């Protein structure tokens, strides 16, 4: 089915693949022990060698071992605080107790290497030598049993009080690439996940008072002997996570054909309504752009305040939001985190890109999708509208981008970034603004078509940067793709500025001769526009003459400098390059204009004076 859609060229709703090839399918049972904060699990993994090569080894990701002690790769990183902003405070780990391949016979557990390749202190990425090679198309059924001890919530998994967010909790096989190489990674604080698609059938056994949200559809639920036993099923996903808390309140709503299950803490009724409102807009909005959401369920978990580190995370068909109960009174953060995490259902969930290797493919593209959707929903007040001040997502991401490095490639592996602030500035903000720039310069609709084509064509197909570049080049053209490539791989940037503005009165001369007019003096104005950096976009330059006339000139932006001359009865008093602010990744917007007559600074004085007058009034004894 995937091959058919690839051949078809433009992918439409009719040709969207309905499901992924089931490479790694799990049938698991998990029992939650709320006294020991532990999960005992067992079950089977049905794995198919979907590559074109025989393999004689398997790799397993045992990511809870990242929290085993202070010497793991995760915890010995110089920046012990990871994406969620928290350090490990209660150790957690996963211990495999059974590993048997039915087709190969014998216990494979002794063959599981004790630590990550080349790193005796880390146990998150483990190689298993097989007794014989597994041929392409051949499958294995692995019987598994394990015990997971949950850490205090860190990196969006673990326990806080009686709240559980259980992610990366089972032994998960790494992804086998089509060429037969394993994409396996130790768990790095900056990195997320990458895995093959499969069908999940998971039975959860929790204390009776627990309210549970989990990946997939609930097919049964019963209570017996003080335990709640529920079964979740979902096909075509590459992970499974769940959350349990006795305090959840619940809202159910069918949105755009999807059963939405919203779990939130008491007192968060307004946040819950805002979350659902955001989903009512964003589910069809993203579906229209990037292909219909194919799963019947979406579970949204808003963790309680004391488990806030569990918020803002995506798993297939399950997202976590967050924020205090009063947040929706003064900001749009609730809507934004909802839209962002929902967007990950496409830019991570349905595309299955390699997050550790190319984080920009999920976080960068998804941040663009978040900006586009939030500005479609809220306009210029997409981030906040309080006290008469409206802030947009674009402005906030620009601030984030400007605080980060200016010349680093965006397409770096997550582990290569110096810290998460740098990753945030480059991967989230700069990538999103780069895409926005491409849209505003070469056509927003064309960009949307290109991204939509990428998202549809490579659904369930684990695309990489080349697939993105190809889809965008087909819509936006070679120049746009070159700019994108340079920014992604070479760290290219751009800054346009007005370097000089001069106007001289032309010498009087007989009527009709030279540049002077018999009706009055004429002026020759000269504007020097400069481009710094390696990216080159066509730009507009707006000239304003002394009588207020506005003249727009175009520059292909290819050279370093462009001299624009204007002869007329009025001198040019102001020049402004990129007056539409189309180039959202311009390094400095404030040097984009130059005036010989500056407007009086009345507004600044007015606001500052008034503010401090009120302050002085308030501070008087």
């Amino acid at each position, binding site marked *: 089915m995937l091959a058919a859609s690839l051949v078809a060229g433009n992918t439409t709703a009719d040709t969207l693949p309905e499901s992924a090839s089931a490479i790694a399918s799990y049938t698991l049972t998990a029992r939650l022990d709320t006294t020991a904060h532990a999960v005992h699990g067992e079950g089977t993994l049905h794995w198919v060698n979907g590559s074109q090569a025989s393999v004689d080894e398997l790799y397993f990701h045992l990511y809870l071992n990242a929290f085993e002690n202070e010497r793991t790769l995760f915890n010995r990183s110089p920046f012990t605080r990871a994406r969620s902003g928290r350090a490990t405070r209660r150790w957690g780990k996963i211990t495999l107790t059974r590993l048997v391949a039915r087709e190969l016979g014998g216990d494979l557990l002794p063959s599981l290497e004790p630590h990550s390749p080349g790193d005796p202190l880390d146990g998150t990425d483990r190689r298993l030598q097989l007794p014989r090679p597994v041929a392409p198309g051949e499958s294995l059924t692995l019987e598994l049993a394990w015990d997971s001890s949950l850490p205090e919530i860190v990196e969006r998994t673990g326990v806080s009080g009686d709240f559980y967010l259980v992610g990366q909790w089972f032994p998960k096989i790494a992804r086998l690439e089509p060429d037969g190489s394993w994409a396996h990674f130790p768990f790095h604080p900056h990195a997320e996940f990458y895995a093959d698609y499969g069908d999940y059938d998971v039975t959860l056994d929790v204390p009776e008072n627990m309210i549970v949200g989990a990946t997939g559809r609930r097919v049964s639920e019963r209570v017996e002997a003080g335990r709640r036993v529920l079964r979740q099923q979902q096909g075509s996903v590459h992970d499974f996570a769940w959350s349990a808390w006795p305090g959840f309140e619940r809202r159910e709503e069918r949105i755009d054909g999807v059963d939405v299950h919203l779990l939130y803490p*008491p*007192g968060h009724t307004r946040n819950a309504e805002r979350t659902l409102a955001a989903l009512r807009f964003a589910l069809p909005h993203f579906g229209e752009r990037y292909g219909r959401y194919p799963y019947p369920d979406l579970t949204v978990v808003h963790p309680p305040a004391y488990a806030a580190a569990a918020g803002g995370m995506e798993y297939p068909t399950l997202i976590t939001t967050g924020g205090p109960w009063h947040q929706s009174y003064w900001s749009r953060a609730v809507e934004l985190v909802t839209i962002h995490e929902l967007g990950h259902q496409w830019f991570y969930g349905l595309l299955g890109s390699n997050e550790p290797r190319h984080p920009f493919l999920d976080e960068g593209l998804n941040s663009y999708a978040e900006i586009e959707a939030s500005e479609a929903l809220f306009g210029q007040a997409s981030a906040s509208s309080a006290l008469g001040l409206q802030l947009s997502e674009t*402005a906030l991401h620009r601030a984030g981008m400007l605080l980060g490095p200016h010349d680093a490639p965006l397409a770096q592996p997550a582990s290569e970034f110096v810290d998460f602030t740098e990753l945030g500035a480059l991967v989230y903000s700069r990538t999103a603004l780069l895409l926005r720039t491409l849209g505003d310069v070469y056509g927003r609709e064309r960009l949307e078509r290109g991204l939509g084509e990428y998202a549809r064509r490579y659904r369930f197909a684990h695309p990489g940067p080349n697939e993105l570049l190809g889809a965008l080049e087909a819509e936006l053209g070679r120049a746009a793709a070159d700019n994108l490539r340079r920014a992604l791989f070479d760290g290219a940037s751009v800054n346009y500025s007005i370097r000089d503005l001069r106007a001289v009165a032309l010498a009087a001369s007989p009527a009709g001769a030279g540049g002077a007019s018999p009706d009055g003096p004429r002026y020759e104005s000269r504007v020097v526009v400069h481009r710094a950096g390696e990216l080159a976009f066509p730009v507009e330059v707006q000239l304003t003459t002394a009588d207020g006339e506005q003249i727009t000139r175009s520059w292909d932006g290819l050279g370093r400098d462009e001299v624009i001359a204007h002869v007329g009865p009025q001198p040019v008093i102001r020049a402004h390059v990129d007056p539409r602010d189309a180039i959202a990744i311009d390094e400095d917007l404030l040097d984009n204009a130059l005036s010989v007559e500056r407007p009086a600074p009345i*507004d600044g004085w007015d606001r500052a004076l*008034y503010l401090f007058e009120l*302050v*002085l009034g308030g*501070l008087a*004894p």
Partner: protein
Amino acid sequence: MTGASRPLRGRVLAFACAASYLYRLLGAALLALPVIGAIDASGVRDFSRGNARLFDPGGLYLLEVLLHAREQLAASLVPTLTLAAVLGFLGFVPDAGLLGALGSAPPPPRALERMLWLSLATWGARLLLGLLTVGLALTARSFFASARDERLPLLAIGVMLVIGVLLQVAVSFWHDLAAADVVAGGARARDAIFAALDLARASAGSLLVRFVGAQLLALGTLLAAAAVVGTLEVVRGDTWRSTTALFIHQLAVLATIGLRAAWLRGACRASERLRRA
């Protein structure tokens, strides 16, 4: 007061109000200088509409300028806050002038010195109450820290903060009555603090109505000014819009000073009546 002295006293009062306003204006200008300097250095005035661009919906240029000027603004933060505290405290000087113009008799020779001590006492009381409020708010919050309903801790903080604000308002009320007794009644600072209690006991109802009325009217004035300025759409960058906004804001400040003078006049009269009784 004789008919001949009334216009004179009116002029003195107008002068005192103007002095109070000018003090506020010049103090604010001094405090605003680093901000205005940073905005000017950013180059935003090279754009059409100049500074008005800072208030565009979306805040693109506002954040750009803040980022551009962040080091300059950060460097000026502590000096600006210190200067604001000093200028705020010295606000008792124009207040004393205002009270002097409102009293029936000329202020006593050491009125300014006594106002200084009174103001120090008031600031001390404000600081203590502020600390007490924060402490009580945090304690109240801790009682509800483990509540399932996350609104309860903030509600507890909110209740304590409201009580704290009301106590601060009460201190202002007390301070103003004492200040009236110092300047218009010739009392010493310590005596005035206790006299203010007698004054409040003697005519609490009418004084409270005047005080709260003046505060509410001042708040209403500021809100009305905000509403009117909001309709001006200064982001369009026309000079007349910006100038009108500036004018309205300054008028609002002047009006609040006038309302304060009206309240202090009532306080002076009450103080004088109590002394006569």
